[in-house]
């Protein structure tokens, strides 16, 4: 397990965002890729309206921000 500790010493830890910061980021990226608010993006994502082949890659990128506001 010596290798594990060596790596931990080189690891930098992440910074937590507030919900407000997360929502600002989600709004920004939902508008950038889909022209909609973050709230509307979450509604469409949860309803399965962003799963077609054309939307999938960009929709998944934005959807990764949903945990920052739930």
């Amino acid at each position: 397990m010596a290798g594990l500790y060596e790596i931990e010493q080189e690891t930098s830890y992440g910074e937590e965002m507030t919900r407000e910061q997360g929502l600002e980021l989600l709004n920004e990226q939902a508008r950038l890729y889909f022209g909609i608010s973050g709230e509307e993006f979450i509604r469409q994502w949860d309803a399965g309206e962003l799963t077609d082949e054309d939307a999938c890659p960009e929709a998944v990128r934005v959807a990764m921000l949903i945990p920052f506001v739930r």
Partner: protein
Amino acid sequence: MSLSRGAYEPRETPHGAVLNQNRPVVLDMREHGAARISLVVAMEYSIVEADGDRGPWKVTTRQYNFELERGGKRLFAFHWHPQPPNPYTTPHLHLSKQPDACSPALALLHVPTGRVSVEEVIRLAIEVGVKPRRDDYDKVLSETQALYEQYRTWGGSGPPKA
């Protein structure tokens, strides 16, 4: 890395971890003047109780998005997003939309892959021309890949069904 609030505590809904606020990170290239490669890393995870060597607590991945762009346009996007209602629940790859890379029809496909690690995407970035920041990158990536493989609970096309 940016983490969702309470990132180090268990909670019902998954946590988020994104590199550079989910914006592409532009990387240095080996060849001067080459179109720049950018990296996107985003994961959802949960903190769960675990037995044995993996315990008493472990981080389990719930979803991931790893992307490489070239000149600001998608080159590869490695996805795993198993939560409904999205019907594509196994790990897959989206190919480039760039016209010199492959046809638009191919770029729409969800090409099946096994589970992909960040280390593997970084190696791919180096393969397409990114300049490693460390001379010992192979050793570092091999070590962290080995740890990931030791503690992950699944590879292949998805976790065991409950």
